[in-house]
């Protein structure tokens, strides 16, 4: 594994187990600036756990990570936004009672500078910042076509829209690295196409590197620059969509997963 200097994320020999159960082991992964890097694999392969370890929610037992210039054995989750990393969750993690706009605004929590007194007294520094942040939030809301829902409580929206609000909250901070854990799960083909368009456009506009966990192989092939395949917590292959399609280990792993519910993966 070559970890080039331009890589925004480098994971080396990362391992995590829960008690005796291995979530993933000895994972190497590198993501270049602006790259869309998909992580695929059957359910329970360790994809979400890997992202949770990269974002500091799980503490890996071995291995190292580099995000930009910062090296960690364990990433402190509270520093994530400051490191330019944003993420969405496999199971929605919105602020349900806040409106769509407020959810997106909260994605700027890390760059909030005006102190409490300035906010309470409505000093000009706080007002200026509020105006600027609102403009940023509104432009992301427009970009993701959430305008007509901006005042609605996020928890009251249908599932597909909630996924989109979560993407908006992650994008508003202009992250250098964005981790998306199954952003299209449970969506119709049309919704997936729409979401794919947003993911590509986000990369074009912001140059964000994106780690994408997705089960729909069609989507993965279309969006990804590179793909890493996990199986039972091990990395069995990394390569371009073309290379992955032809990889015997990948084919074996997928054909072996007879009773896996994500059989759509085989269709590709």
């Amino acid at each position, binding site marked *: 594994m070559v970890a080039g200097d331009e890589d925004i994320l480098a994971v080396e020999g990362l391992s995590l187990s829960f008690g005796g159960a291995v979530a993933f082991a000895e994972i190497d992964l590198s993501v270049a600036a602006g790259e869309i890097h998909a992580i695929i694999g059957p359910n329970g392969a360790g994809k979400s756990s890997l992202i949770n370890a990269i974002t500091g929610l799980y503490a890996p037992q071995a291995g190292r990570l580099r995000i930009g210039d910062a090296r960690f054995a364990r990433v402190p989750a509270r520093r994530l*936004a400051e490191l330019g990393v944003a993420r969405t969750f496999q199971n929605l993690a919105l*602020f*349900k009672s806040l409106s769509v706009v*407020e959810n997106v*605004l*909260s994605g700027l929590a890390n760059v909030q500078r005006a102190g409490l007194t300035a906010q*309470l007294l409505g000093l000009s520094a706080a007002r200026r910042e509020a105006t600027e942040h609102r403009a940023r939030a509104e432009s992301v809301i427009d970009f993701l076509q959430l305008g007509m829902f901006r*005042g609605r409580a996020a928890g*009251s929206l249908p599932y597909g829209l909630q996924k989109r609000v979560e993407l908006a909250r992650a994008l508003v901070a202009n992250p250098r690295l964005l981790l998306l854990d199954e952003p299209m799960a449970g969506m119709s083909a049309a919704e997936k196409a729409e979401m794919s368009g947003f993911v590509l456009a986000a990369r074009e506009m912001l140059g964000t590197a994106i780690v994408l966990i997705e089960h729909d192989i069609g989507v993965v092939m279309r969006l990804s620059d590179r793909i890493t395949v996990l199986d039972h917590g091990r990395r069995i292959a990394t390569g371009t969509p073309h290379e992955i399609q032809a990889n015997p280990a990948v084919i074996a792993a997928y054909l072996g997963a007879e009773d896996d519910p994500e059989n759509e993966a085989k269709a590709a």
Partner: protein
Amino acid sequence: MATALPVTSAQPRRAGAAGILLLLAIAYGLVPLVGTSYLFEAILTPFLALALAGLGLNLLTGYAGLLSLGSAAFMAVGAYAAFNLSLRLPGLPLPATILLAGLIAASAGVIAGLPALRLRGFYLAVSTLAVQFFVAWALNRIGWLSNDSPSGIIDAPRLVIAGLSFDDARGRYLFSLTIVALLTVLAWRLVRSPTGRNLVAIRDHETAARIVGVKVARTKLLAFALSSFIVGIAGVLWAFAYLRTVEPAGFNLDRSFQILFIVIIGGLGTLRGAFLGAGFMVVLPLLLSRLGTALLGDGFDTGTLEMVQRIVLGTLIVAVLIREPAGLAALLDRAFRRLSPRS
């Protein structure tokens, strides 16, 4: 739970602003003219103090999702701090005394909030309960705090600001009203600020809040500080303007539960909930005693009243929790929406 908490939108807010101005006009203009001493002393002043305590607790429990059973302890810290400040620094103007008492209560809140960095839900509630018992113990044991009064009951100082006395019933009402109005504006600014948004973010999804860069530990302690500041000043009003004595019994565990019930019945996570809940809590016993006397005549004594009151209150809380977790505030909103032509 997704529907349990209120949805913010612009239209009711504008109607709300007009409503608040109207309420203030009545509270300052009409009520002082027509009110009786009984209305001021037995209804409005305790209502204001309890509403303020509810407002403070609501910031912590309703907005930030941190359950506290120690409200009365923070009220006590405020009241005793104000008493000692006015006793030991006689030159200090009353507004400064109250502000400092609030700040002392806020510091106590920060200390009491430290466990919240590790505990949540039930365990946090138990740790605030410990604060309640500790404060009660300290007030009984440390005579210095009550100026070594043998009974532990001390007269509250007079309410005088810049030579103006607020000692009569109407004055104490206006004094309380002004403090409550000012602190309500403060709380209103807070819940609409980015900091207020962070409080709700921590309540709704602490992990996501941390990931987007909300300083979770600092924000939780801030919630304790701001909440205790307001609850502490509510304690000053309770002792100085309502009871006119400062004594530990005014701030026992029952009081903590009363404040919590006010917030639950009124509506968690709304500012008006505290006022609705407090109004309910003050008016309920009066209604029950009228009703009881009408139905049972002299058989309805204070003992019976207290028992009936507890049963009715308990039933209502259970009913609210089951039927309308967002409390009276949500009920009222729905009624209002049904009455308004279109929205």
